[in-house]
C-alpha cells in the first residue's frame, strides 16, 4: 500500500516502430508491425523457423546518446539510457542527480548479445580470452546501472527478471519506491534486446509465429494465432508523487492505480498455466471496485495460443472483456515494454486500428479487439508470464 499518490509525468519509448510516443501512435494507428528478416547466418535457426523480428537495428539514438557513450554499452544499455533521457525530457526534468532518484527496470532476456559474444570467446578461445568490457555489461542489471551513471541517480537501482510480467512488476515496484517515500523520482519500465541467438531459442521453444500461407505474424486472440513476434526496445516512465508533480506544474500523463501480483502453479516451466479461475479471483479481489470502472484493457496477449486462451478466460471471468481491448504486441512485438507505452497513449487518446493480422477473432476466446479513435479513462494492463507469474496494473486519467 503506497502512502503517496503516484503519477506518470514523462515517457520515453523506442522500438521497431521508431523512437517516441508519436512513432508508436503511427504504428498502432496503422495496425501494421514493423518487422524485418532476422539474421540467420550464425546457423542457430532451424530450417522452418520464424523469420521475422521486430527489431531496432539502425535506429538513430544520437539525440539521447553520444556515439562515444554508445560504444561502451550493449544494445540493452543503449536502449535503456536513450529511453530514460527521452522520458526525462518529456517530463521536463533537466537534472535528477540525487539519492532520491531511483531506477527500476525489467528485462526478460538481459544483454543476450554481449553474453553470447563473451561465451563464444570463452568456448572458442579459452577463459583467458574473455573481455572485461563485455563482462561488465553482460549482467542483467547493467542497463539500470548505466542509466544511474548517466543520470546520477543514486537511489534504489533495481532490475527485475520475470519474463512477460516484468514491465508491470517494474511499474508497480517503481510506484512503491515513490509511494512509500523512498524516492522522489523513479524511472521505471522495461528494456530488452532481441539477438539472433535468443530469437532462435525462442523459436526452438515454439514461442514464435512461423511462416504460414497467411504470412508470418503475431495474431493475439485470432483463430489463426500460432505464436508471438519477437521484439525489442525500451519503455521508461517517469514516476513522481502527485503532490510534487503538481507543485512543479508538471504535465500529468496518468495516475498509477493499484497493482496485483499472483502465481499460477499449474504453469509448466516454460508454458502458461490453466488456472484462469484462480487468476481471475486474484485479480478481482485485488482490485475490488477498481475493476468495474476499467474501460480499456491493454492486454499482454501475444499470439501464443496458450497465453491468449488463459488471458481471455481471465478477462471474461472478471468482465474485463467488455472493455476496449487492445493487444499491442501484434505491432510492437513481445518484449520492450510496448504495453506500457500503449497504455499512456490510450489515456491521452489516439487512433487505434485492429491489427491487420487479427481480423478473424477466435470465437472460442470471445475477445474482440477494439479499433478506432479511443480515449481511455481507466486502463487495466495485463501481464501473464510463461512459468506462471501474473501481474496487473491500473493506470487512470489524471
Amino acid at each position, binding site marked *: *500500500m503506497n502512502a503517496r499518490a503516484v503519477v506518470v509525468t514523462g515517457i520515453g519509448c523506442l522500438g521497431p516502430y521508431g523512437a517516441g510516443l508519436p512513432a508508436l501512435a503511427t504504428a498502432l494507428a496503422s495496425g501494421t508491425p514493423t518487422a524485418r528478416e532476422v539474421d540467420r547466418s550464425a*546457423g542457430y535457426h532451424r530450417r522452418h523457423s520464424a523469420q521475422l523480428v521486430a527489431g531496432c537495428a539502425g535506429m538513430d539514438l544520437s539525440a539521447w546518446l553520444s556515439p562515444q557513450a554508445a560504444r561502451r554499452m550493449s544494445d540493452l544499455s543503449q536502449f535503456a539510457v536513450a529511453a530514460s533521457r527521452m522520458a526525462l525530457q518529456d517530463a521536463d526534468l533537466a537534472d535528477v*542527480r540525487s*539519492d532520491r532518484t531511483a*531506477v527500476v527496470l525489467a528485462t526478460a532476456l538481459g544483454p543476450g548479445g554481449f*553474453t*553470447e559474444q*563473451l*561465451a*563464444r*570467446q*570463452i*568456448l572458442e578461445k*579459452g*577463459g*583467458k*580470452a*574473455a573481455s572485461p568490457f563485455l*563482462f*561488465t*555489461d553482460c*549482467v*542483467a*542489471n*547493467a542497463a*539500470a*546501472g*548505466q542509466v*544511474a*551513471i548517466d*543520470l*546520477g*541517480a*543514486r*537511489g*534504489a*537501482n*533495481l*532490475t*527485475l*527478471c*520475470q*519474463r512477460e510480467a516484468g514491465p508491470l*512488476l517494474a511499474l508497480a*515496484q517503481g510506484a*512503491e519506491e515513490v509511494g*512509500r517515500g523512498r524516492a522522489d523520482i523513479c524511472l521505471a519500465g522495461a528494456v530488452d534486446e532481441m539477438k539472433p*541467438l535468443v530469437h532462435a*531459442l525462442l523459436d*526452438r*521453444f515454439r514461442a514464435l509465429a512461423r511462416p504460414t500461407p497467411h504470412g508470418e505474424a503475431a495474431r493475439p486472440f485470432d483463430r489463426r494465432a500460432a505464436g508471438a513476434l519477437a521484439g525489442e526496445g525500451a519503455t521508461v516512465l517517469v514516476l513522481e508523487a502527485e503532490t510534487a508533480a503538481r507543485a512543479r506544474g508538471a504535465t500529468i500523463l496518468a495516475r498509477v492505480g493499484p497493482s496485483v*501480483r*499472483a*502465481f499460477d*502453479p499449474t*504453469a509448466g*516451466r*516454460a508454458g502458461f498455466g490453466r488456472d484462469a479461475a484462480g487468476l481471475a479471483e486474484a485479480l478481482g479481489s485485488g482490485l475490488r471496485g477498481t475493476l468495474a470502472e476499467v474501460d480499456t484493457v491493454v492486454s499482454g496477449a501475444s499470439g501464443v495460443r496458450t497465453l491468449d486462451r488463459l488471458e481471455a478466460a481471465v478477462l471474461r471471468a472478471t468482465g474485463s472483456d467488455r472493455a476496449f481491448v487492445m493487444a499491442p504486441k501484434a505491432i510492437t512485438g513481445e518484449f520492450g515494454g510496448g504495453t506500457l507505452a500503449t497504455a499512456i497513449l490510450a489515456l491521452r487518446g489516439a487512433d487505434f486500428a485492429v491489427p491487420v493480422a487479427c481480423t478473424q477473432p477466435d470465437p472460442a476466446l470471445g475477445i474482440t479487439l477494439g479499433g478506432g479513435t479511443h480515449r481511455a479513462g481507466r486502463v487495466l494492463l495485463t501481464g501473464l508470464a510463461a*512459468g506462471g*507469474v501474473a501481474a496487473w496494473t491500473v493506470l487512470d486519467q489524471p
Partner: protein
Amino acid sequence: MSHAPVVVTGVGCTSALGTTVDATWAAACAGRRGIAELRLFPTASHRTSIAASVELAEPTPAERGWARAERFAMVAAREATAGIAANALRTRRAGIFFGSSTGALFEGERLLAELLARRQPSVRPIAAIQNDGPGTSIARALGVRGPVVTFSTACTSANVALGAALDALRSGEVEVAIAGGADELCEITYAGFNSLRACDPQPSRPFRASRAGLSMGEGAGVLLLETLAHAEARGARVLAELAGAGRSCDAHHVSAPAPDGSGAAAAIRQALGDAGAWAEQVTFVNAHGTGTPHNDDAESKAMAAVFGARSAQLPLTSTKSLVGHLLGAAGGIEAVLTTLSIVHRLLPPTAGDEPIDAALGLDVVTGSARALPEHNLGLSTNLAFGGNNAVVLLRSWR
C-alpha cells in the same frame, strides 16, 4: 516509522560447506573453507583454478532438466519451509522474492556449445536459462499463489529480494514469504571476474593486507519470513526479526564501487532508519567482504562513515572467505548465517591467517568464532556491479 514486525521462522542453505544449514554452520564456525580446485568445468584455460563448488546428489526424476541453481534453490527452500504446513504456502497470501544473477548460465553455455558445434540440442534447458528459474521453480513446487518476483542486481540480488519481501509482508500483501537467492558457477562469470583480475588464485583473504581478490562460489540461501501475527498464530519458533533494509546506487562505475564507500553508507543508514535503530545498536557485521582490494577498502570507509570510531571495535566477518562469493545468492546465504549468529550468539571467523590490513580500521573476527552479546542487531551488506548496494538488518527477537 513503526512497522508490524516481520520475523524469520526458517532458514535453509546449500553451499560448498554442506547442503544443510547445520553442516554449513558447523563448518563456518570452525573456520573451514569450502574453496578448492574446481571440477565443474576445465580450468586450464582460465587464470585461476579454484572455487567453492557444491556437490549435489543425483537429481530426482522430478528434477531432471533442472538447472543447478534451481536445484540449489529447491534444497534450501525445502529446508527453510520444513516447519510450516504445506497449506500455509499454497495460498495467495504466500509469496516468493528471489535473487539470481546468473540464472542457469552453466546450462546455457552447454547449450551454446552444442549450437556452435551444429548439433541439435534438447530444448528443455532453454526453459531454465532465464534468471527467474530458481524462484519460479520453488513457487511451482510448493504451490505458492501470491507474488513471485525475481530480482537480478548482480551481487545484491538476494538482499534486494529480502527487502522486497519485507515490503510485501509489512503492507499486508502476504503473510508468508520465501526469500533469498540462488546462483551457480559457470564459465562466463568465472572467466569474467578473472578478466577483471578480481579473482585470487588462492582462497580469498578478505580484509587481509595481502588480499588479492575473491573466490567464486555457488549455492543458495533462503529465509522463511512471516508477519509476527502469522508466526504466533501457528506457534512457530521465531529465530530473528528482519528489522530493516536499505538500497542505494553509487552511480559511479559499472563494476567498481565508489572509492569513498558513500553509496554503501547511504544504504546502511537507510536500513537503520527502516529498522528504527541507531548505529550504536548494531552489534556485528556480516560484510560483503569479497577480498578485492577496492571492495574491502570502500566497505571499510562505509563502516567508518556510519559507525565512526566504533567501527574499529565492531565485530565484522566475511563469510565469503568460507563459502565463496555466491553472487546473486550471496545476500541469501549471508542472511542465513546472520540469523544463525543471532540464534547462537556466535560470529564465524573470516578464514585465513595472514595479517589483517590495519589501515582498514576494522575489528575483523579471525581464528575462531567470536561470542556475541545476548541481544544483537546484525548488519549484512552486499555491493554489486552497476554500483548497486543493498543491506539488511536482522535483530534478536525478544
